[in-house]
């Protein structure tokens, strides 16, 4: 039952996008998000669309996996679109009682929906083609300069990867404890809210106990292997840029320049 939940939605495939350095993907995603919120004009929109679908195509991830992420923000998207539709001041084109729809509002609503959709699709590509561990690795390396001003970047990255690593283990543990208590007649489904919360105690107490036990064991195991933080620590697979990554950087910069050019010279019709 619980084991069916997939976390970290990595989709294994053999594509150029998968092989990219995680830092490139993080940076590219950031640039793409910025471009989504500063583009102007139909030409830029077409450029953003073409870029997005070209990347999706090269990533070899089935399109339906990307759409999954969209379902989660459907409500948010609807609310944003409605607010834009009804609350943008301007020339009304349709008026119903106190509701009026302006041309600007309609345009904003459509544009906002497109931006949010592209945002989700763009970030999905990153999470679908990068394992959580690669991602934290990339983050750690990109944020390393911050450690100069006293931010424990390595520790944060380590905590992130440990947390990610333990999610499936804790899910399995929850499943096991749930079954064990059900074998003793526990009921997790029926009853009103207060009842349900009370019935969770036999599940939550053992789960917390086991999480603490695991944390203790892990700390002990790390210390036994002489772990003492990031200072002077080397990696088995250090991140290194190769020719492919440089090309990717060039492409993302070129894309960004195209968007900026469109914004300046072809801002029609926005």
């Amino acid at each position, binding site marked *: 039952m619980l*084991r*069916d939940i997939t976390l970290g939605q990595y989709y294994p495939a053999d594509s150029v996008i998968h092989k990219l350095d995680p830092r490139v993907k993080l940076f590219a995603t950031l640039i793409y998000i910025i471009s989504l919120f500063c583009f102007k004009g139909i030409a830029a929109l077409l450029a953003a669309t073409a870029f997005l679908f070209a990347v999706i195509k090269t990533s070899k991830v089935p399109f339906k996996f990307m759409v999954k992420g969209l379902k989660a923000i459907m409500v948010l998207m609807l609310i944003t679109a409605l607010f834009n539709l009804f609350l943008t001041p301007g020339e009304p084109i349709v008026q119903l009682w106190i509701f009026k729809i302006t041309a600007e509002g309609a345009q904003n609503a459509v544009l906002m929906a497109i931006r949010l959709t592209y945002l989700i699709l763009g970030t999905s590509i990153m999470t679908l083609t990068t394992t959580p561990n690669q991602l934290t690795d990339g983050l750690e390396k990109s944020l390393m300069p911050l450690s100069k001003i006293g931010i424990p970047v390595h520790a944060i990255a380590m905590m992130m990867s440990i947390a990610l690593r333990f999610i499936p283990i804790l899910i399995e*543990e929850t499943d*096991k*404890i749930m*079954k*064990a*208590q*059900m*074998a*003793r*007649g*526990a*009921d997790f489904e029926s009853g009103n809210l207060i009842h349900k919360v009370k019935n969770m*105690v*036999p599940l939550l*107490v*053992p789960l917390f*106990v*086991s999480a603490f036990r695991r944390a203790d064991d892990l700390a002990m195991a790390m210390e036994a292997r002489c772990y003492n933080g990031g200072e002077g620590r080397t990696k088995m697979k250090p991140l290194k840029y190769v020719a492919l990554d440089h090309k990717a950087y060039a492409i993302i910069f070129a894309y960004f320049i195209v968007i900026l050019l469109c914004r300046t010279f072809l801002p029609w019709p926005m």
Partner: protein
Amino acid sequence: MSLILDKINYVYSEGTAYQIQALKDVNLEIRDGQFIGVIGHTGSGKSTLIQHLNGLVKATSGTIYFNGQDIYDEDFDLRELRNRVGLVFQYPEHQLFETTIFDDVSFGPKNQGLSKEEAGLRAFEALRSVGLPEELYYQSPFDLSGGQKRRVAIAGVLAMKPEVLILDEPTAGLDPAGRDEILDLVARMHKEKGITVILVSHSMEDVAKYVERIIVMNHGQVMFDNTPCEVFKHYKELEQIGLAAPQVTYLMHELKEKGLNVNTEATTVAEARESLLEVLLGREPNHRGSNLEEENLC
């Protein structure tokens, strides 16, 4: 009183890339009062199999009959089944949660709808039968030693007075003394109360010593289902699937090869001793231990 499994199939994560067939056409009949051992290497489907027996996991196809009733019927009460088929999971001490041992053991009986007094009575009885010192009853279960915690957890299931008791590797991680205590307790329950016991184990010695029937699982299928001495005759096949026969069986086979006419079917130390005495003291060889009072004779 019996449990019948009819062509049980179970598939994990069906329809995804991670699909695994955990059970494949399993047919079994578990009759009343038997002491059964289930063996198999890791991932052979043992744990999945036993979770079917009290309806925690629903088979992908096939049916289970409890006393002739189909447990997957809409109007079949699964909670009632779980009251009568007690399941002790691996490392059961990880499920303790109450503030006192006594409350934890009463959890099961209370869920059965018994009154506070009755549930308390059951808890007392169960705690006494697992041999926990009485001064500990009102302490936190988290302060106990590993072996004691496990006994409390087993008491938690015993307090529900199941007719069938299933234990998934109850001795894992215990020292030899703790292991014997638990297994002797289970054997005593079986003998005194006549409950059906299903013991999942990795230890061939334990299984040979206590059970009267062995079910060998391999790749989700039942490979052997017979008495210990019949099953351990196939010790070469057992080795191929990552299992083994009891040490005694190997010893007896080696002695036989060296020319001593001993009974190679002996699976426990007591049987082996009897057979050796027969041979060495010039009693009739292969007498099959007629003067033995061990239960699991061949």
